[in-house]
Each structure stands twice: as structure tokens, then as C-alpha cells.
């Protein structure tokens, strides 16, 4: 089995796993308890918070731990929009966002917000000019991802942030796929809120974080109540081993970035070159503005489900794992102008720290063989 689905969930880094196993072996202690065991747990939480903050080059106070990027997206978007209700009722996002953003924006629409979903160009890009046009006097929030989870397209968030700040609009950035793949800091993005995931960057599943700018600090209405943890923004006993794992995953991503980013880019480039043995294939999304770990390719003239079925030894998906159960074709690819059948006949390859050149070569061979066979089977 060749695992090329690191964008759905990445392999756990063995160093992270060891840190988690050590945490699981520590004596029990609720980080909110004042006795020695509780204080030791608290120390571990704060060390991890500092590790996450370091990657964003920000203060630890700006990091709130959550159960994952989905919750972070919800807290950021629902929290900021609800807190800003009295200032305005308009929210802007893009058609190509993750469901954890789009479905939240739909929930806001049911609460009386009006919403604008920006259409990207054929390369998946959304320009600052398009954002500028969409912003209205009553716009309170813009949510735009840094790296798209299906195509790997990287948006020019800096330019978009400049528009937001000029127009007094809060900016939320879903950076779940960006950490460790695209160099950025909280300041370089210029965002007010940034959603972070752990399991997308070789950390544990079930933990994430939200960066909240400190100065000025956007007001947020919490989603959950009780206990008062995390500045009363996110109550519930802090899961020590999970947060330790996320901290270590971020420290590792930071430490390895200079080496891993070009290596991952090399792997996806190599795969793209090998796949070009096939005629009639299309790269989805900008070739220039893209994250190194994702390659999304459409194969003309084959059925997507049959193609995936013909590749039993490759673990990959056609799009987001979150809607993998969904029989319809990717809304992200359709937003880029692909027709239904072509969107359906697409594969998202996503590589990670464990992926080797040999695996890429084997995967490319398997895909070329499967596409060739299915095309031969089809009417001309």
C-alpha cells in the first residue's frame, strides 16, 4: 500500500508518537488542578503552546487549543461574526473553501447573515481586486484558506489582508494544509484568526488550535461553555497527550521545513512528469502558486470511481476526505471550471514525510497502467 493521502490525514511522526507515549505514561494530572501532578500537566501544555506559537512567530497567549481545524474554523467564523452582528451582517468567503468553512457560512446565513461566495479563476486563484469588489460597508468577516486541500493552490493572503485591514474587515485564514508546507507567520499573513490542524502535519488526530491576534484582539463569542479553560473561549479538560503531540508536530515541522518543503515539491513534480506519459490529462489549479504536497490531476475519458478501484494499492482520494462519501464530483474542481465528468475523473495525490521517490515511481506506473487499461476498455 502506497499512502498518498497525507492531505486527508498524515502519517504520525515517530518522534511525535514517542512524545505522546511519554505523556500517556506520565502520572495523571488535570492541568487545571493546583497540586503537583496538575501543575506538571500545565507545564507540558504551556510548553506545547509555545511550540505552536513559535511556528507562527507569535506569543503563546494568542494560541487557543481546540479539537481540530473544524472546530477552529467554527469558533473563528461563528465566534467572530456573532460578536460583530451589531456592526454588520455580511460575510465573504470562497466557493473553494473546505466544508468546515462553507457549512459554517451557511449556518450564518440561517442566522440572518448575507453571504458572498467568491468564484476563483480557472487556476483556483482569487485576487485582492475580487475581494475588494465583494467587500461592502456591512462586511464584518472574510474567510479565505491559505492552501486549498484539494488542489494545493496557495492564495495571496497578504494582498487580501491588506484589503481587509483597509476596509475594516476581520480576516480568518484556514491554514490547516499550510503549516510545514508553505512558510508563513501570523504577521506575514496579517490575519486576525488562523485555524491550525495537527493531524494534517504528522501530529495526532483530534486536536487543533486557533490563533487569535492579540493587538487588536477580535471579539469572539464562544461555541462551548463551562469550566473557563482557554480564556473561557474553549472549555473542557485540556487533553495533555494530544496537546503535547501537536506541540511536538509543530516543532518538527519547523525544524524540518527547509529540507521537507523542497523534497515534497520534488516528489509532486516527479509524479507530474511521470504521469505525462499519458495523453489528455490536466493539472488542476495554478501550477505556480501551489503547496508542495498536493497534486490534483484530471484524466480525460475515464470514470473516477473505476480509476480509484483499479488502483487498490494506492491510498488516495478524488478530493476531500470529508466529502469522500459524497457521490457527486468535487465542488472545488467544478468551481475551477471542470465539468462534472472530468471533476469526477480526478485524483488528488498528497505526499508527506514518509513518501519516497520509489513510491512515487510505483504510483505513477500504476496510474498510467490503470488509465491506459480503462481508456482501452471505453468506446473511442
Amino acid at each position, binding site marked *: 500500500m502506497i499512502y498518498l493521502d497525507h492531505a486527508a490525514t498524515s502519517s504520525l511522526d515517530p518522534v511525535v508518537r514517542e512524545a505522546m507515549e511519554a505523556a500517556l505514561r506520565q502520572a495523571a494530572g488535570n492541568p487545571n488542578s493546583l497540586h503537583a501532578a496538575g501543575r506538571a500537566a500545565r507545564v507540558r501544555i504551556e510548553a506545547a503552546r509555545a511550540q505552536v506559537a513559535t511556528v507562527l512567530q507569535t506569543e503563546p497567549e494568542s494560541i487557543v487549543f481546540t479539537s481540530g481545524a473544524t472546530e477552529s474554523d467554527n469558533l473563528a467564523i461563528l465566534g467572530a461574526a456573532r460578536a460583530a452582528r451589531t456592526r454588520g451582517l455580511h460575510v465573504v468567503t470562497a466557493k473553494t473553501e473546505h466544508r468546515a468553512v462553507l457549512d459554517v457560512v451557511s449556518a450564518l446565513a440561517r442566522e440572518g447573515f448575507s453571504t458572498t461566495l467568491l468564484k476563483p479563476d480557472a487556476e483556483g486563484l482569487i485576487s485582492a481586486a475580487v475581494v475588494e469588489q465583494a467587500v461592502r460597508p456591512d462586511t464584518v468577516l472574510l474567510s479565505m484558506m491559505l492552501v486549498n486541500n484539494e488542489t494545493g493552490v496557495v492564495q495571496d493572503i497578504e494582498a487580501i489582508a491588506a484589503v481587509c485591514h483597509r476596509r475594516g474587515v476581520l480576516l480568518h485564514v484556514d491554514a490547516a494544509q499550510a503549516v510545514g508546507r508553505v512558510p508563513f507567520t501570523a504577521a506575514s499573513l496579517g490575519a486576525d484568526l488562523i485555524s491550525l490542524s495537527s493531524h494534517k502535519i504528522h501530529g495526532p488526530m483530534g486536536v487543533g488550535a486557533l490563533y487569535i491576534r492579540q493587538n487588536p484582539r477580535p471579539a469572539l463569542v464562544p461555541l462551548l461553555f463551562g469550566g473557563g479553560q482557554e480564556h473561557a473561549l474553549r472549555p473542557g479538560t485540556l487533553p495533555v497527550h494530544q496537546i503535547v503531540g501537536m506541540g511536538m508536530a509543530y516543532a518538527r515541522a519547523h525544524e524540518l521545513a527547509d529540507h521537507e518543503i523542497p523534497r515534497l515539491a520534488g516528489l509532486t513534480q516527479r509524479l507530474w512528469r511521470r504521469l505525462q506519459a499519458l495523453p489528455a490529462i490536466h493539472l488542476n489549479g495554478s501550477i505556480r502558486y501551489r503547496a508542495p504536497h498536493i497534486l490534483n490531476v484530471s484524466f480525460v*475519458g*475515464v*470514470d473516477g*470511481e*473505476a480509476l*480509484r*478501484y*483499479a488502483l487498490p494499492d494506492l491510498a488516495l482520494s478524488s478530493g476531500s476526505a470529508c466529502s469522500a*462519501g*459524497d*457521490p457527486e464530483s468535487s465542488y472545488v474542481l467544478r468551481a475551477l471550471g471542470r465539468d*462534472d*465528468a472530468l471533476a*469526477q*475523473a480526478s485524483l488528488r495525490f498528497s505526499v508527506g514525510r514518509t513518501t519516497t521517490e520509489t513510491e512515487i515511481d510505483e504510483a505513477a506506473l500504476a496510474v498510467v497502467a490503470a488509465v491506459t487499461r*480503462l481508456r482501452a*476498455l*471505453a*468506446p*473511442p
Partner: protein
Amino acid sequence: MTHEGAYSAVVERLFMETPCAGALVGPECVIGEAVDRLTGTHVRVHLQVHQGHVAQARYQVRGCPYTIAALAFLVPAWVGSPVASLQVSADQLHRILDAPADRRGRFLLIEDALRAAVGACTGIT
């Protein structure tokens, strides 16, 4: 969740082996075709008919694993049968392939293609 990812062993074997896949050209050969734009499914049935019976049968297909498996199951069995007796039972296909309900449309597409092929036989004896 679709049924994707939970195909039966029967589907797997038929999908891998696709017996009788291909085209027929020459005298006494007819083609029946059906297309569904929405899913991009395209089925072409080839029959060589001799004295009202199927001498050879082939298919070309772009479609999901169930569609491919259905053709690989049906078409080889047509050889030797009277053309007038050929038919596709969607119910039978669901049963044999353990196919999810949402594939019914694709099985009906195969029926359409067969009907077209049988229709094209008029004049061939």
C-alpha cells in the same frame, strides 16, 4: 457514504478480468449504444448475429466498477442465445453484484444499449 470501497469479490473478479471486452467489426455485426451525460457513463454493445442467434458478443464501456462488472457478467452469456431472448434484469444485477440502489440507472443504461443493438439486427438473419 456511497457503497464505494465495499465491492464484492464477484465485482472484483469481473472488473479485473473483463471477459469479452472489446469491439466487433465485420458482416453481421451491430452496435447498440447508450450514454448518460451526468455520470459520463458510456456503454456500447457489439453483437455478431447469425441466423437469429448471437455468434459473438463484445462491449466497450466507460463507467463505474458495477457497470463494467455488469457487462462482464452479462455479455459472455449471450453467445448462442436467440437475439430475441436477450434481456437485462436490473434486479438480478443488483443481487449478483451486491450493488447499491444508486446504480440502477447504470444498469438501465445497459438495457438501453442492448435494446439498441437488438433493434439494429433487423434485416440480419
